């Protein structure tokens, strides 16, 4: 069975959105879940968060950033072509309830997984304060969509080209300092950003959740490759997560484990780009 790509667009430099036909997955999808796809028989299985889903149309949207070989290859595909494998929805759905005030913090391509959460939290009756950021203005994604599903939207860029000049976590801290009662914070982005964000929010009386992105193979609890340490205990991100209590996460281990294949990944990407230049792809 093949999974057809219905739409593809570059929404920011090196960041792409893709709409894929996968009716069974769309029917079952919930906010906070992800899929694993494989381009072809020779490809790796890579996890991507479900950015949006439309049950009636039977489609799933994902947003991905060009990182290594697989995401670069994915970029080369266009509407009408198909993916060999597309499995999901994976992971435990986010725990969405009416909690009152919720802060959602997204950094870089991490804004993509924040969007379905914002939508769901708002629908559940929460007041959603979203804070999104990027290195600079042109790398900022989903501003308009985020505005639609948030009560309030703040923007931060590292270089100050838009919104607050600095980090998303600066804004988060300011809100917490203002004394406004916040029930929950969800932070999604590069592991280092989640680590720093969790550190900043920790002293406050608020629940802090992060969505972890450990290296995965099957996504069904079968390989243990995605294991993380939560409160001193080993958990599997794909079945026990991906959302975890940020205060309990061993971020240092997560970051180190993500580097397991760094050497090979770099080689694979370089070889691929070399072949692209030679016109082999």
């Amino acid at each position, binding site marked *: *069975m093949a999974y057809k790509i219905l739409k593809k667009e570059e929404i920011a430099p090196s960041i792409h959105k893709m709409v894929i036909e996968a009716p*069974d*997955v769309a*029917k*079952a999808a919930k906010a906070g879940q992800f899929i694993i796809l*494989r381009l072809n028989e*020779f*490809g*790796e*299985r890579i996890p991507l968060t479900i950015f949006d889903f439309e049950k009636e149309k039977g489609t799933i949207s994902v947003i991905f950033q060009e990182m290594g*070989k*697989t995401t670069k290859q994915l970029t080369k595909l266009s509407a009408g072509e198909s993916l*060999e*494998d*597309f*499995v*999901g*929805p*994976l992971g435990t759905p986010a725990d969405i309830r009416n909690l009152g005030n919720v802060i959602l913090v997204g950094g870089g391509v991490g804004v993509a997984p924040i969007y379905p959460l914002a939508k769901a939290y708002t629908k559940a009756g929460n007041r959603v304060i979203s804070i999104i950021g990027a290195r600079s203005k042109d790398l900022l994604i989903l501003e308009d969509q985020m505005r639609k599903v948030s009560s309030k939207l703040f923007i931060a860029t590292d270089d100050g080209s838009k919104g607050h000049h600095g980090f998303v976590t600066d804004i988060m801290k300011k809100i917490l300092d203002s004394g406004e009662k916040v029930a929950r914070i969800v932070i999604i982005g590069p592991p280092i950003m989640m680590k720093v964000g969790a550190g900043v929010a920790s002293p406050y009386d608020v629940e802090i959740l992060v969505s972890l992105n450990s290296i995965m*193979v*099957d996504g*069904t*609890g*079968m*390989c*243990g*490759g995605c*294991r*993380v*340490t939560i409160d001193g205990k*080993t958990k599997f991100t794909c*079945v026990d997560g991906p959302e975890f209590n940020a205060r309990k996460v061993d971020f240092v*281990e997560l970051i*180190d*484990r993500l*580097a*397991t*294949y760094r050497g*090979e*990944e770099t080689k*694979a990407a370089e070889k691929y780009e070399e072949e692209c230049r030679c016109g082999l792809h």
Partner: protein
Amino acid sequence: MQEINEEKTENAKKELTPMSEQPADERRKNFNEVTLGYTKEDALVEASRCLACKEPNCVEGCPVNVDIPGFIKLICKEDFAGAIEKIKDTNALPAICGRICPQETQCEAFCVLGKKGQPVAIGRLERFCADFDNKKGGKRPEVTKSTEKRVAVVGSGPAGLTTAADLAKMGYRVTIFESLHKAGGVLSYGIPEFRLPKKIVQQEIEYIRQLGVEFKTNYIIGRIKTLDELYDEFDAVFLGTGAGLPNFMGIPGENFSGVYSANEFLTRVNLMKAYDPAYDTMIRRGKHVVVVGGGNVAMDAARSALRLGADEVSIVYRRGEDEMPARREEIAHAKEEGIIFRLLTNPVRILGDEKFNVKAVECIKMELREPDISGRRSSVPVEGSEFTIPADVVVIAIGTSPNPIIFKGSEGLEQNQKGTVVADEETGATSKFGVFAGGDVVTGAATVISAMGAGKKAAKAICEYFKGK
């Protein structure tokens, strides 16, 4: 009492016919199949050793009761097509069973010839017939859909495949749901190419497809649909979801980069073909590899690591060789290939470097105790005997528990403490009316043939269930 033809016993060759294999120093560098199978001549010689016992013990030893003297007699008559048909009457996957059944504890363990000399090489003969048949392209099965009853089979391992094949032959409409991108269960993702070529697995699956079974891969029950939803949609459900959740030891350092569960390591190697440069799959190719465990899984991981280019691979096992649960042939093959066996040794800690990469395994020597009431010998650590083995890859192969996702969002399915599904031994019936289960999900990690045996019984029981409805 068994009737033995004394004269024939005397004349029969005491030794079984050897099977040719790749020399050890060659095969340790490739993933091609180790054993090469019987030629027609080998098969005829070996088949002639069988006494065609009237009350064959060997059949009792086979969990699916293959008519062993029956098919061997047909080999003697050079009716290989007839022989394979006879085998397939009770065993849907002969090319696989002939290769990887633990014959020494099953059919061959009970062969009368084994009392005085070596038993008939039943597994090798079975494999010969299956391979002969496959080479010819096999016979396309004829099936007629005689009923509208629909059965959902969850999991495409040997248990699910057997249930599906039997039900399809009885005329039912069967759909198999499989969470991975390829069917076959452990046959596809776990057992390596050099022991069970994937082409054979695909051939067997193709045969079952021709029986009219529909395969839905990338389809996780418990995620796309719950078991309860499936139950509403189909007339009966069979669970063959296996025991694929890897156990870890719970010792310090188990999460260092380079420490794998056997499942992850073998999935990357087999399902994702990390050894083939055409594939993008990442794997850490260690120079010094330590594998913890003593079963088939440990042997497979160790021998795969060797083939990926390791200088030294050792197996660390806390009991002695006699206690190892692996097939004897695999232990022998592993030794021939130069795998180091560190027996009566148990890991206590895994050590890493500043970059979180594994660098050594600290172990302790163990001592065997006298057998307990159950006859099993436990082992205890020898105080002060700690030592370290350098390692850049560690693979943990100490067992698995049932895959967890199938149970999500469903009610009323009784499980015991270990997470396995409670099912009737004879029928596979579970606590949920109309839901049957078999294979590793019921027994915990066991064997291919026992999973198939459970699948057979369940198929029969499902048929009875429909008749009674």
